């Protein structure tokens, strides 16, 4: 009807999903890596240590993936550590005491997590009890149940089949193959996307920018694969993180459920007025979080080859911190899964690096606390402020 935008040049800056903020995060990560690399005389960057590092970040990363959704939806979950402990305990009990098969055990643990998540989600969504309280209660309840059903004992050891979940590596060739497939898929989907946008008459970015970024990623992927293959190969737990990371990135970007979560967290009233079912979607978030806590529990138990009553204690704080480091706002509505995973990696790097340096424990606490604050500060000051000054 009136004049349209096609007059504008097509070269417009289309803010790429991987925006400035994520870059700041990656830079923070690089700095931490570099510093530890230097301070440990390169040990930190050895292929073996990188392999350890990824295995060490797994549990927190899986929890942080789900936590991102929870926080984006405007809630919080303090029970995930306990829940991972409990589901891991259930897994161990079913296998060690009752002799269940690994596959069934894993399914049972994840279902238990989802079910308890459902229970918590019901209180939050349909009874309007603040998530902080529901999940603080959950933290106590789940830990209590775990102590109760295990009689306070550590349940171990598990079957070989269960153990390998966190304690094995991909054969080198399979690793390279996967990396290649990943790279090809990246290029293909970028190409297809551009093609489609062209057809629909949408603005397209300069190919050099798109393919430039892709090439950087490709190099990173191949380098990492090479490094990990120099040791024992790609650790299976890392694959698990990549799998769930990918799945949840897909859910949050490509499904209505994912978008609804962001809308609910961004402006609950607007979401309700748009006809979004707040309660059901909120419930689903907690179910998913519970299921992921089940996954984390399985990984944890497999890693230790045992389930102990204190497993997972305080992991909730690490998971939340990973999300916040990754740019998720505790006010809801804003957050991304890649950031959360990088956040988990930063947390794990701090622990790993300092332990490689054999610093006294109390200094480790102090330094970790300081790095946490400074890392988030760097990230924040790289973003533009938007509120009025005071």
């Amino acid at each position: 009807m009136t004049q349209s935008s096609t007059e504008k040049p097509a070269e417009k800056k289309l803010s790429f999903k991987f925006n400035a903020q994520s870059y700041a995060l990656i830079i923070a990560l690089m700095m931490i890596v570099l510093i530890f690399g230097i301070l440990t005389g390169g040990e930190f960057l050895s292929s073996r240590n990188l392999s350890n590092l990824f295995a060490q970040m797994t549990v927190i990363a899986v929890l942080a993936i789900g936590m991102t959704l929870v926080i984006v939806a405007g809630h919080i979950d303090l029970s995930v550590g306990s829940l991972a402990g409990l589901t891991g305990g259930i897994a161990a009990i079913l296998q060690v005491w009752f002799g269940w098969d690994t596959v069934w055990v894993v399914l049972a643990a994840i279902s238990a997590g989802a079910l308890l998540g459902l229970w918590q989600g019901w209180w939050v969504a349909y009874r309007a009890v603040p998530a902080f309280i529901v999940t603080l209660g959950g933290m106590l309840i789940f830990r209590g149940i775990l102590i109760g059903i295990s009689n306070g004992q550590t349940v171990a050891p598990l079957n070989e089949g269960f153990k390998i979940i966190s304690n094995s590596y991909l054969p080198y060739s399979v690793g390279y193959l996967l990396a290649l497939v990943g790279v090809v898929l990246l290029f293909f989907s970028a190409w297809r996307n551009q093609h489609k946008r062209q057809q629909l008459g949408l603005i397209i970015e300069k190919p050099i920018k798109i393919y430039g970024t892709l090439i950087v990623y490709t190099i990173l992927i191949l380098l990492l694969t090479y490094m990990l293959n120099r040791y024992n190969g790609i650790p299976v737990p890392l694959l698990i993180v990549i799998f769930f990371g990918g799945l949840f990135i897909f859910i949050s970007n490509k499904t209505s459920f994912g978008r609804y979560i962001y809308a609910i967290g961004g402006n609950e009233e607007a979401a309700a007025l748009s006809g979004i079912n707040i309660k059901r979607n909120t419930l689903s978030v907690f179910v998913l979080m519970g299921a992921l806590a089940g996954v984390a529990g399985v990984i944890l138990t497999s890693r230790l080859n045992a389930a102990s009553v204190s497993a997972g204690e305080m992991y909730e704080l690490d998971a939340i911190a990973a999300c916040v480091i990754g740019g998720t706002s505790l006010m809801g509505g804003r957050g991304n899964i890649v950031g959360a995973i990088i956040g988990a990696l930063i947390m794990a790097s701090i622990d790993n690096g300092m332990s490689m340096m054999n610093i006294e424990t109390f200094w480790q606490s102090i330094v970790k606390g300081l790095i946490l604050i400074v890392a988030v500060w760097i990230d924040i000051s790289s973003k533009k402020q938007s509120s009025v000054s005071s």
Partner: protein
Amino acid sequence: AACGQDASNGNDNDDASSDNDITIGLSVADLTLERWQHDRDIFVDKAEELGAEVLVQSADGEDEKQLSQIQNMLSQGIDVLVIIANNSDALSPVVNQAKEENIPVVAYDRLINNAEIDAYVSFDNERVGEMQAEYLVEQVPAGKYFLLGGAPTDNNAQMFRDGQMNILAPLIENGDIEVVGDQWVEGWSAETAMSIVENALTANENDIDVIVATNDSTAGGAVQALAAQNLAGEVAISGQDADLAAVQRIAEGKQSMTVYKPIQDIAAKNAEVAVQLANGEDTEAEDTVNNGTVDVPFIKLEPIKVSQDNLVDTVIADGFHSFEDVYENVPEDERPEKPE
């Protein structure tokens, strides 16, 4: 060709330190408990005396953290690994990894199950629980007992309780002992222990003869609750670890006993064993203990019951605490004679 080239260098693990030096990795369960600080200090001194270097890490009481830290130590190329396990059952994967890399492993104080280890140097945790109960039963053969367990999430707390029950169960059965309460203390917290005992005293109208406290920090809280009722010293109460505050209470008569696990001995012995293993020597042990995978040579050290009568001959004689410290709150004229 490049593939896997770093994976196989587990053998030549002397790259962390200069030539012939031995590097010991010491993984401590939790340095926030007073006793482990002593363990660490003595161990490190002794090891250095024997010419070894020690890397120390503390897991703050978290199983997975300990596993990660041991992985990190392994990748630094240590020659021998000494582990104070936070959880006896939760370390097998990483210990097996050490084994694959031909690094000997010593279990310090707590056995590690389901994995191949080379030596176990410890006091017997169940024995500790038995000693606590034995002493209390000696003092009060019949009466009302309150059981104050350790952290419900600490595996050792279970073992201490098992030991206590070895002694108490028959007496409970025949009615000599009446258990008026059984509570466990989250995180071995003194404050929680204090509240629990306050409430127990209230619920039982102070009619409690014995408190079976499992370690010294919980005993400390319990004694505070007793003191408020002017019952400190009236009620028999156990402990463990010979923390300074606890032996001071024993000196003052507020706590009946503690179980002293001579840390000098265990730490020094562990250091010796570690150095021996690193040099490829054999260790001699009279006992073995089966951990589910192998028969582990077990160097067993006796814990010691410490009460007012033998303070001077044990903790003070060992140099674990000084005479002045222990009797700080006891008037000069009531102190025993100071050994020179």
